[in-house]
């Protein structure tokens, strides 16, 4: 279980990745596996920054294969998953709130023969009952909230939940429904950290919609945001109107939701669908994208970040020899550029995530179960910091 490497093979198909949102000390990621035939697991990935080691713990998730995972912002032991359940030849994706057993950290630094070691099981707190609304695409926690409010996107419904009685009971507080021609279905969504957490952005097909959670009504709609399906969204953590999106047209687009006719900027660096886009939580010029061309791209979007003028520092006294595989292309501080393209994955990368504890660290997960942890190149880090 100890890898002197920056990557780990989970040996299971996996799509769901999240940073443990409430954990600010350890660098920790959660991965949910996808298997129709075996018991599914939650892999807890700890990265030892000093020794460059990856430690893995496993918790059993026997409800079904995991499509989406998300950690509570308030309680680091609480998390939600979206999992598919097959019953009577019908596949339904459900959502539930779980608690990690408190002992997982003590007895678990599992030995290589993990099959013999019986992993502990997640403790179910409550179901987000969606039988009336259909399959759940994702569950979103209120950003920086107290871990009591959740949103789930089920088919064409937005459901706002209140967790009560120490999260053991979930109650729908309000709903919104997307009406329109055909079978509308949310693919993903993002709860905006701005505006007092009253806004939500969702994606369905090629459109991006904004919702006001107080009135549960649509506030903007970017029709044809992408030429094809929109796969992911992320809000700029520092600029309240800025939003990044990615999709099947291989593009990453940046939007100012006040001017939705044209994107602010458009990147076309991937050679296949872009499945995941993430702003760095503190330095919003750093942008991470993962694609089914098996690549992860770290870009430096200075010009549309909250620090468009950056910090001017001489590059000469900085050395980045230690980052062997990363080519540092961003020499001019004010130029938008690709910082690095990571080609360590061999299958489609469906999820990328920044670490919560260390803003210079990120993880990417490919379908074949390989998780890779990388750092922002040191030279760039110093340039941003100094």
């Amino acid at each position, binding site marked *: 279980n100890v890898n002197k490497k920056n990557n780990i093979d989970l*040996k299971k198909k996996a799509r769901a990745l999240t940073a443990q949102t409430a954990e600010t000390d350890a660098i920790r990621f959660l991965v949910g596996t996808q298997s*129709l*035939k075996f018991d599914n697991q939650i892999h807890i990935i700890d990265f030892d920054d000093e020794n460059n080691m990856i430690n893995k713990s496993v918790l059993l998730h026997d409800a079904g294969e995991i499509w989406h995972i998300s950690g509570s912002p308030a309680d680091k032991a609480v998390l939600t998953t979206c999992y598919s359940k097959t019953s009577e030849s019908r596949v339904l994706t459900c959502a539930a709130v779980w608690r990690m057993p408190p002992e997982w950290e003590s007895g678990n630094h599992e030995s290589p023969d993990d099959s013999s070691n019986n992993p502990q099981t997640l403790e179910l707190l409550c179901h987000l009952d969606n039988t009336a609304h259909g399959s759940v695409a994702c569950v979103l926690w209120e950003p920086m909230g107290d871990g009591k409010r959740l949103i789930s996107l089920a088919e064409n419904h937005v459901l706002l939940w209140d967790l009560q009685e120490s999260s053991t009971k979930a109650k729908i507080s309000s709903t919104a429904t997307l009406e329109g021609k055909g079978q509308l279905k949310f693919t993903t969504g993002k709860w905006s950290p701005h505006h007092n957490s009253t806004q939500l952005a969702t994606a369905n097909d090629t459109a991006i919609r904004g919702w006001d959670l107080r009135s549960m009504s649509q506030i903007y709609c970017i029709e044809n945001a992408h030429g*094809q399906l929109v796969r992911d969204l992320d809000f700029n953590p520092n600029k309240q109107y800025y939003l990044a999106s990615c999709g099947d047209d291989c593009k990453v687009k940046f939007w100012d939701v006040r001017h939705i006719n044209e994107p602010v900027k458009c990147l076309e660096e991937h*050679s296949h669908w872009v499945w995941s886009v993430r702003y760095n939580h503190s330095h919003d010029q750093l942008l991470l994208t993962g694609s*089914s061309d098996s690549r992860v791209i770290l870009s430096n979007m200075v010009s549309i970040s909250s620090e468009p003028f950056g910090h001017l520092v001489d590059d000469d006294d900085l050395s980045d020899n230690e980052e062997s595989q990363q080519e540092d292309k961003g020499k001019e501080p004010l130029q938008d550029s690709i910082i690095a393209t990571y080609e360590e994955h*061999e299958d489609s990368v469906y999820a990328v995530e920044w670490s919560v504890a260390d803003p210079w660290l990120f993880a990417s997960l490919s379908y074949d179960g390989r998780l890779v942890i990388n750092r922002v190149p040191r030279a760039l880090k110093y340039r941003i910091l100094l």
Partner: protein
Amino acid sequence: MSSATTPPDSDPSQRRRVHSMLKHYYGLNEEGKVTEQAESLDPCDINGPHFDPEVYLNKLRMECSLGELMDHESCMVKQIRSLDSDMQTLVYENYNKFISATDTIRKMKNDFKKMEDEMDCLSANMAAITEFSAHISGTLQDQHAQITKLSGVHTLLRKLQFLFELPARLNKCLELQAYAQAVSAHRRARCVLQQYSHMPSFRGIQDDCHVIMEQLAQQLRQKFRDGGSSAKDLSECVELLLQLDEPAEELCDKFLSHAQSRFEADLQGLEAELKDSPVTDTGGGLVQKTNPGSNPVSPSSSSTTNPFLSPTAGTDILEFIDRGCNEFVSSLCLVIASYQELFINRPQEGELASKNIPEMANGKLHVFVDTLAARYFSLVERRIQEEKGVSDNSLLVRALDRFHRRLQAISKLLPGSAVPSQGTEIVVRAARERIKQYLSALQTFYHDSLTDVRQALAAPRQSAGGASVSGGGATSKDATPSLPELLTSLSNFILNQLKSVLASVHLFTAKDITFSNKPYFKGEFCSQGVREGLVVSFIKFICQSSRQYCESAGDRGGSTPPALLLLLSRLCLDYETSTISYILTLTDEQFLVQHHTPVTPVTALCAEAREAAQKLLNHYVKVQGLIISQMLRKSVETRDWVNTIEPRNVRAVMKRVVEDTTSIDVQVGLLYEEGVRKAHSSDSSKRTFSVYSSSRQQIRYAPSYTPSAPMDTNLLSNIHKLFSERIDIFSPVEFNKVSVLTGIIKISLKTFLECVRLRTFGRYGLQQIQVDCHYLQMYLWRFVSDENLVHFLLDEIVGSAAHRCLDPSPMEQSVIEVICERG
């Protein structure tokens, strides 16, 4: 000496010689022969004056022998004897003469005495006459004085009479309009009157004259002002007025202002033509605008539409310029000429010379000509600007040529004038403007042609929509002009249009055009104007507009038909390989471009065209891939794969995919070469398929679905991936059919894979996927460069489907084959 030696008996000549010798002796030398005198200095010369007998004798004695002396002596004696006899004869002759002369003198003495008497008588008579005449003149003295005085009075009176009659005469002249006479009369009298103006009577006359002359001047001015009179009259008028001390400046002004009024009329006439032409122009424009909408059937019809249609304006520009030249410029020349005749080139006389009229007049003339020319030019420029249609450039060039040529006359008349150079400026501007118009006309033409092509591409699809579904590309191809035909016709249309434009523009530099030898037309016009501004810009425009097709259509559902993208890509590629260099060579040859300023090199343009071609082809691949992807995606997403029935057929959508791929293959094959493919045997579909189905598939499936060995799947696929290169799905393609098809198939299959991974399959769902993939396998390998690619992707699809399967029990390979064979 010689005479001494000659024998004496030779008659006349002998005698004359003797004469001369005698003369000589006595100093009667009339001929004065210097030589003889020089000779005679010799004391031994017996005939010379300095003859010294002693010396002579001594000499003889010393030089001669005795015999000789004897001879000499006898000779000498003989000579002396003959001389003596000669002398005697002479004396006798002269004596007789002297006698007769004495007789004559005596006779004369008598005659003179008689004559003296007669002379005395005559002198007495003369004295009497003198006395008498003095008497007469004394008596006539008085009368003569009187007569002289009288004749003086007579002339004075005549002058006075002239003066007194002057007013009347002037009046009469005035009546008869004999202005010249009047002026000369007045001029003669003027100074006299001036001198005697203190006398009242003269004063009166002077005043009268003054009044009359004033009147006359008035009339002259009137006449001058009325203008109707001929140039000769006018010049006479001016001459007279100048003589009347009229200030030259004023006259110049008047002359010019008078001329001005006439030009005013000319200019207004020209402007009137301008003013009504915009009205007809917009009318024409409207007509033209409706045209392309109503009948843009084929590219050929569009060539006659919009920009190249001749404008329907009232007068064409040649007429306009002609009118301007004939009326305005020629009368301007006339005015300049007569003005110069009147004020500048006139022989200067008297006090007029001191006023320095020519300089002043010249200045005025320049200002006058400049202002008029400026107005004329502005009218001409407005007219040129109206010349929007690019139908007949020769008309414009001829008009400009005429315009320019006629201005040369002014430059001859008025050497320092800026007018001709301004005219050249206008021509240059017009030429520049023309190039711009041609460029935009070419651009419009290009767009129209593309619209035509687009319609030609779209037309059969509407008419035979149902047929094309069943028949694939083949039937639709038959119904329409095929892609290569469209391509060649489009490319020919553009090239011909460009050539005709070049030919039109070439008129500007024709030898017989006056302005063609101006530096602008020799240098900048050719290089910056035609080459850069027209040809290069147009090529760049083509590339740029092609690139726009990629950008605009990309997001919003592909408004550009893919066939057009393919066609444009081939067009750009053709441009890169040959057309650009051909066009530029043609231009350089036609215009003999001397590149003073840096020009765009052919290679840069070619690179741009290639880039555009590449981009278009990439976009084509993307669009076609997307179309097939959408079909596959829909087919995967909308089906309930868990509860599907056992597969009996290949799904219709797969057939459709193969059909579409085939028709794309046909379409691309029409324009692009085959390309290279990795070697494989002719029946490779069978062979590789069997490998795929039997060996590999069984290796993969058999262990992977037993729970005990989950590792093998990963291991196998990882090993496989290790050895296969990373596949870039949306990667640039090469300019050949195989590469294009490979790109499209890659995109489609990758979509299929990703969609499969998002679904959950039942047993029959997996089997259906197996069947579908096998079907694709059977047909798609032939299109791609490396069939392993297809195998790999299809393997991945089936593998993923198996992994996503709740009950993974794969279908028997033989059954799959049977189903697929059945179709």
